[in-house]
């Protein structure tokens, strides 16, 4: 009964204020603020960090140590543009060797990726974890060196014909579009750990006469019969806070 009365009073008050707001909004601005203040009891305020996050790809560093045929480094950064939207990019360098039975090829080059991440995770108050989907445009400049190859025959009558006259193909470029999905979790302070997967589609690549682009920095390996590529990464990140937005969130009574 008591709450019903309170509810009624609230409604009446709301009705009255709305009349006033419509009629003379400017003069009663101060009073309007008071109304907002009234609701403080039903909300909490918190600071939401906005800033630049700088990440280091750990998977590429790990792979560089474990795999003799690979050396790579990637630094990523993203800037929180709005509540859920982050402007993101990666910069990297890779040297990858394809060393299989019939040919050995080394790719050496750098890449840049630019795009956005969209956070699909609704954080608890004050937390800044991310489950995101992202889009990138990637561009790489690189060179390939075909170090050796065999003339493939199905017959073993003659000894294998191994050619070791290495051939270099420079000034190669490639571009692709990429979808990312990932997670980034606040570990301690402004440090985060992240993991993500990538799906990409090659848009363009320099044609090499009588050879092919076997590996494109940033895109990773190519496939003979499709323009699709895949990748992944683990990273450690540091958030450099630039400013905070005070956010208010309603709390159920």
């Amino acid at each position, binding site marked *: 009964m008591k709450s019903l009365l309170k509810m009624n009073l609230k409604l009446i008050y709301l009705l009255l204020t709305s009349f006033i707001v419509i009629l003379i909004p400017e003069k009663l601005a101060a009073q309007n603020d008071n109304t907002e203040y009234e609701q403080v009891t039903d909300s909490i305020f918190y600071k939401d960090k906005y800033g630049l996050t700088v990440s280091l790809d750990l998977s590429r560093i790990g792979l560089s140590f474990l795999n003799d045929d690979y050396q790579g480094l990637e630094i990523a950064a993203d800037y929180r543009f709005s509540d859920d939207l982050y402007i993101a990019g990666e910069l990297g360098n890779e040297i990858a060797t394809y060393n299989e039975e019939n040919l050995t*090829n080394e790719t050496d080059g750098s890449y840049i990726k630019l795009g956005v991440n*969209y956070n699909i995770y609704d954080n608890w108050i004050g937390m800044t974890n991310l489950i995101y989907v992202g889009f990138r445009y990637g561009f790489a400049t690189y060179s390939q060196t075909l170090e050796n190859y065999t*003339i*493939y*025959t199905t017959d073993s*009558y003659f000894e294998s014909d191994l050619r070791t006259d290495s051939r270099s193909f420079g000034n190669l470029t490639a571009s692709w579009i990429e*979808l990312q999905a990932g997670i980034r979790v606040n570990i301690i302070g402004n440090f985060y750990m992240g993991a993500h997967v990538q799906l990409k589609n090659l848009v363009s690549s320099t044609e090499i006469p009588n050879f*092919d682009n076997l590996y494109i920095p940033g895109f990773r390996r190519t496939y003979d019969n499709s323009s699709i590529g895949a990748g992944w990464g683990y990273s450690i990140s540091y958030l450099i806070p630039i400013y905070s937005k005070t956010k208010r969130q309603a709390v159920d009574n």
Partner: protein
Amino acid sequence: MKKILCSVILMALAFSLLASCERDDICAAATPTTPKLVVEFFSADNPGQNRNVSNLAITEINVEDTLRFTGTSEISIPLRTDAIETTYIFNINSEAASGGRIDTLTFSYATEELYVNRACGFKVNFIDFRVRQANNNPLSWIQDLVINEIIIENESETHLSITY
């Protein structure tokens, strides 16, 4: 909106991982690679009729191994990819007490390297294919040589016809 976006992307990623699991680092047997020379044998007595060879032993002059064919009118033999000539000794009826009859054929050509794919590497096509029969050979058995293809780029055609 968020849920739809998320599920679409997760599905796309799952699909891509499946697609990328397909191995293409092993050269598939069906891939056309360096072609062998396809030789067909014809009868001198019945022109246009195939004639099966019996105990045909073919040995390249620098190789110790011998390729042996019998009961067939069509054979395929490899050509050297690291040279512009391959010389084979064709010894027919090689199992006979007399040792059979012998002809020495030299195949000459230019090689053309072609990239196949990452698994198979490169192949060679043979262009401007010619054949030369050693002269002054009392044991000769080949009566006529006809080049059907001057470019050897697959094994589905007969490149050389031998009449005996």
